[in-house]
């Protein structure tokens, strides 16, 4: 009873361990050796290598797991493919019942899952018990609902097929839920690979799924190294890859899947800003910082790792933060009285330590509280580095550990500029008691999730995902469904282009030599014996017709090979100028995206009106270029005018929705523009092609750089005057004519372009997807396959709007 007497005086905390008995019993039952779960069966490949998994807090061995090879990957994909034939046809309400059963079963095994997660990953039991596992169940309940509603609410869509999912080690169960739940809800089947450090909870989850009665092959879990990951990614019978992890690996996956027709969603890194204004509840914001950067030892992709504090309160705020940090407790993850557990692995610990030393060497002031750490295990003190500026690498690079850097700002606009001064765009937190300020800043920070006076809030009903190099695609909410859906009319794209093997020379793509005079007969069409007045169109940049930088032209021939005109032959610099103009249209006042939808719809109607006024002229031009019938040309022009009406309609009807999350308050999903979109138009439908792509982009507030039909560009160049007369602000639409591949190459390599849409060749589609990895821009390509642009099903609608927007979820808690 001496302890009791001492504690009565010193009022210290003591150990409060959660029991590991049930987890140890489960591990022992498996002899601490795990196979792969394929087709609802444990598979133990006889010759497979094994991988030892550790408890990072103690160093003790938890179990041996299997390293899957090509045979096992093939086996899993085959199982998923076979299951797909029936699962995709299983009625939604039956799938919903299966998912409901899984959700219930998760809750029945909640503590076992939580304890295992903490032992395998090192996260505090409080987090796995109160956050990870409840959200795991929540996602299955939420998406069980979408399975139920799919047939009525998503009639125009079908499942994608077999999905390969690769998840990280920081939230093994939660990431698994984000991946699996929407996929199987929509009728897809899965091969999932957990991260090497943290494999056990996925295997336990797989057992829970089997126990719930999910049909064999719908969810297959295989463990393995990154090679096994590559085998999944490159497997020809996989239709989609979903990945959460580092931006570097995301880049590799983009390369590996380029041109394959596989859908790809990436949820990558971040260096998310945590912005505190001087009118914030400072004590509240301090707790926000704690949850932002020391949640899960800071190993969180959306961690608020860049603290931006208004200069006039910085001193007091940092002082409060330091005081608060002295109260943090780091220790045994199974202890119910700690704030931070262990770092997942020695290599990660080393990385964190490297960055802390880097921060100090860059001149930062290091602060770590005077608290004790366990004598062994991979523990790291909560760390604050202040006094650095944006130019420091420690401020720019993702550390993925318990390290916060702090900077100051003077004004709201400077706060926004600093918040956006990053290659990432995953999340942000904004603290102010002024609703005008908070919501204005929330709307201007480029990030997929913005938490007002709060941080790290998650729910099945709200999408999560990045802007910029934080990736693309959303997980959670209705928006999360589209990663696992394909339009009903569309078959799985299979490209005819085979990229050369890795040891072969890279293909020469996008190289272009300008033309010289072709000496063809001069077109004479004026019916009089007068010399022809040359009408060679220029480029259309920043609302002006400008001469091509290179001063070359290319000849345009009709379908019979007759020369019918010339257009400017654009080069890199024309693209550069066009992109600058497209950006200027955003920064102009009012910027294009900042105009209200009503205004944009008026401009689109005006475009339709002016196009209709020149209806005959456009019909004639189409006939002269393509040699099609008058009816066909008339149909194309009429469809183009209709399409402008369609997107004039959508200009003020796609703003977003209110998400029904568990937050008391309002969670709004805002469909924001992507930014600057480069568009390479298809060769066929010289007018309808450009209109079908330009109109949705600009309707939703993007500015565009368009490479028109290379073969038949004259309908596009004829549009210049229509654009001029329709009040389209300068720079919103920029058109550069010339060699499509040559111009696209510059566009896709341009790191200030946010998305590229490419409807040229199969090879070009490969190249666009491959090259997009430079800045992880979004892409939308046609793989050289035909699309019926005249059809309303294929040529307009939600698919286009989806590509023209990115979803930002703004969380606004309420209550005074």
């Amino acid at each position, binding site marked *: *009873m001496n302890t009791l007497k001492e504690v009565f005086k010193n*009022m210290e905390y003591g150990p409060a361990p959660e029991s590991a008995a049930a987890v140890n019993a489960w591990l022992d039952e498996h002899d601490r050796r795990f196979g792969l779960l394929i087709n609802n069966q444990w598979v133990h490949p006889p010759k497979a290598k094994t991988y030892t998994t550790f408890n990072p807090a103690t160093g003790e061995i938890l179990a041996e797991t299997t390293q899957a090879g090509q045979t096992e990957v093939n086996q899993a994909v085959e199982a998923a493919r076979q299951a797909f034939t029936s699962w995709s046809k299983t009625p939604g309400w039956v799938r919903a019942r299966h998912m409901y059963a899984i959700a219930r079963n998760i809750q029945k095994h909640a503590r076992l899952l939580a304890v295992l997660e903490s032992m395998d990953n090192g996260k505090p039991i409080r987090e796995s018990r109160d956050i990870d596992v409840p959200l795991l169940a929540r996602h299955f309940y939420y998406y069980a609902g979408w399975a139920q509603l799919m047939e009525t609410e998503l009639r125009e869509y079908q499942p994608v097929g077999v999905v390969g999912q690769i998840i990280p080690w920081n939230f093994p169960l939660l990431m698994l839920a984000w991946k699996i739940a929407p996929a199987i809800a929509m009728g897809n089947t899965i091969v999932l690979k957990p991260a090497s450090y943290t494999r056990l909870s996925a295997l336990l989850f797989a057992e829970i799924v089997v126990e719930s009665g999910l049909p064999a092959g719908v969810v297959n879990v295989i463990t393995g190294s990154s090679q096994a990951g590559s085998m999944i990614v490159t497997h020809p019978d996989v239709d989609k890859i979903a990945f959460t992890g580092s931006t570097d690996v995301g880049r590799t996956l983009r390369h590996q899947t380029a041109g394959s027709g596989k859908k790809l969603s990436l949820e990558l890194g971040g260096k998310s800003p945590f912005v505190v204004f001087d009118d914030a509840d400072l004590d509240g914001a301090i707790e926000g910082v704690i949850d932002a950067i020391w949640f899960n030892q800071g190993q969180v992709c959306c961690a608020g790792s860049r603290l931006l504090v208004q200069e006039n309160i910085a001193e007091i705020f940092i002082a409060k933060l330091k005081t608060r940090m002295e109260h943090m407790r780091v220790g045994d993850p199974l202890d119910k009285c700690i704030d931070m557990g262990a770092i997942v692995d020695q290599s990660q610990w080393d990385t964190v330590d490297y960055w802390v030393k880097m921060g100090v060497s860059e001149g930062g002031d290091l602060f770590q509280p005077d608290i004790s750490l366990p004598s062994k295990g991979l523990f790291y003190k909560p760390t604050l580095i202040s006094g650095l500026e944006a130019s420091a690498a420690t401020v720019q690079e993702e550390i993925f550990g318990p390290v916060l850097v702090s900077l100051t700002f003077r004004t709201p606009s400077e706060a926004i500029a600093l918040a956006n001064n990053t290659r990432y765009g995953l999340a942000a937190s904004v603290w102010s008691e002024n609703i005008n300020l908070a919501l204005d800043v929330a709307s201007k920070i480029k990030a997929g999730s913005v938490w007002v006076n709060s941080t790290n809030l998650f729910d099945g009903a709200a999408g999560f995902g990045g802007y910029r190099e934080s990736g693309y695609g959303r997980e959670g909410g209705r928006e999360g469904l589209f990663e696992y859906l394909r339009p009903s009319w569309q078959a799985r794209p299979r490209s005819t282009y085979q990229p050369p093997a890795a040891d072969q020379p890279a293909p020469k793509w996008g190289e272009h030599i300008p033309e010289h005079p072709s000496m063809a007969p001069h077109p004479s069409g004026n019916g009089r014996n007068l010399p022809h007045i040359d009408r060679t169109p220029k480029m259309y940049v920043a609302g002006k017709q400008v001469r091509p930088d290179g001063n070359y032209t290319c000849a345009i021939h009709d379908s019979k090979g007759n020369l019918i005109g010339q257009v400017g032959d654009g080069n890199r610099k024309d693209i550069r100028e066009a992109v600058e103009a497209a950006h200027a249209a955003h920064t102009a006042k009012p910027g294009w995206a900042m105009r209200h939808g009503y205004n944009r719809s008026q401009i689109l109607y005006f475009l339709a009106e002016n196009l209709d006024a020149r209806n005959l002229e456009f019909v004639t031009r189409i006939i002269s270029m393509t040699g099609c019938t008058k009816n066909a040309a008339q149909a194309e022009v009429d469809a183009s005018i209709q399409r402008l009406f369609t997107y004039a309609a959508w200009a003020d009807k796609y703003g977003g929705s209110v998400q029904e999350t568990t937050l008391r308050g309002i969670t709004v999903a805002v469909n924001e523009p992507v930014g600057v979109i480069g568009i390479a138009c298809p060769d066929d439908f010289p007018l309808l092609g450009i209109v079908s792509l330009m109109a949705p982009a600009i309707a939703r507030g993007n500015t565009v750089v368009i490479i028109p039909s290379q073969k038949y560009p004259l309908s596009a160049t004829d549009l210049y005057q229509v654009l001029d007369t329709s009040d389209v602000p300068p720079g919103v639409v920029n058109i550069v004519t010339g060699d499509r591949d040559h111009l696209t190459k510059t566009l896709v390599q341009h790191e200030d372009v946010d998305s590229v849409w490419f409807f040229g060749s199969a090879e070009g589609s490969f190249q666009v997807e491959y090259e997009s990895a430079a800045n992880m821009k979004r892409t939308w390509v046609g793989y050289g396959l035909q699309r019926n642009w005249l059809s309303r099903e294929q040529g307009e609608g939600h698919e286009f709007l989806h590509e023209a927007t990115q979803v930002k979820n703004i969380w606004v808690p309420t209550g005074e």
Partner: protein
Amino acid sequence: MTSKNTRNPGMPLNLDWVLRAHINRSAVERRVATIPTRRTVKKEWQAAWLLRAITCMDLTTLSGDDTPGRVRRLCAKARQPVRPDMLGKLGFPNQDVTVGAVCVYPSRVKDAVEALKGSNIPVASVAAGFPAGQTPLPQRIAEIEQAIESGAREIDIVITRTHVLTGDWQSLYDEICQFRKTCGDAAHMKTILATGDLGTLTQIYQASLVVMMAGSDFIKTSTGKEEVNATLEFGLVMTRAIREYHEITGFKVGFKPAGGISKAKQALAWQALMKEELGDDWLMPGLFRIGASSLLTDLERQLYHFITGHYAARHHMPMG
């Protein structure tokens, strides 16, 4: 500013400071939700904390039917809050553990003083128009004087909620200054904000600052008569005000949640709040009191469980 262990003398009303307060309710709620889930004590640690909670109790009876007999029984429990056999097993000699104070209405102070004679347990009296504060100021002051004269060494006064709700900080400050002056050296003053009657958390923070500036020794959540009593949300806001007041003036003001605290688990959560937001000094009776009555039995039962491993019957614990 360095800490001073002397009583809070108060300071001139600083309205700039009061008016720049911002409290965000949802942030408060999130913090409060995780205090009991981030912090817990088990086994010997829990027993020690529970015993410590007993020493911080203001064992209270504030009813219309209080009689000298009722007060005597309560005071007897105050002297011996844990069964002697249990205290022995916990390793504490009897005299080590008593409650922090006994809290009664002014008319019962004499009974309590009598019953506690020979112990060091102070008698606390509510006063100043308890519970509503809707009594003319001279009578409220007279009530304090009378309670002190009867032997009260702690005075729990109520504020005029009207002043807070109308933003009349000057009047609030002036009234509390007068009460404090009346208490003088004879009694420590706990100021009850009656948080359940106030409109917003920001007002609670502001009122906390004003009454500390006016020289309160303690700030206290509730009379026990409001619709909503001591919640951790109110507690968090008030402790943060205490912390800021300490940071700026160097004076430590105590905190007393009261009303609705009847379970040991709640007491532990309040203690964790104190330790996390203010520090260990605020876990001792000099700066922390819990106003309660039935709580004591539950604390005693949990101690019994610690000693024997059996859950305790309520009727095995002597009544207070």
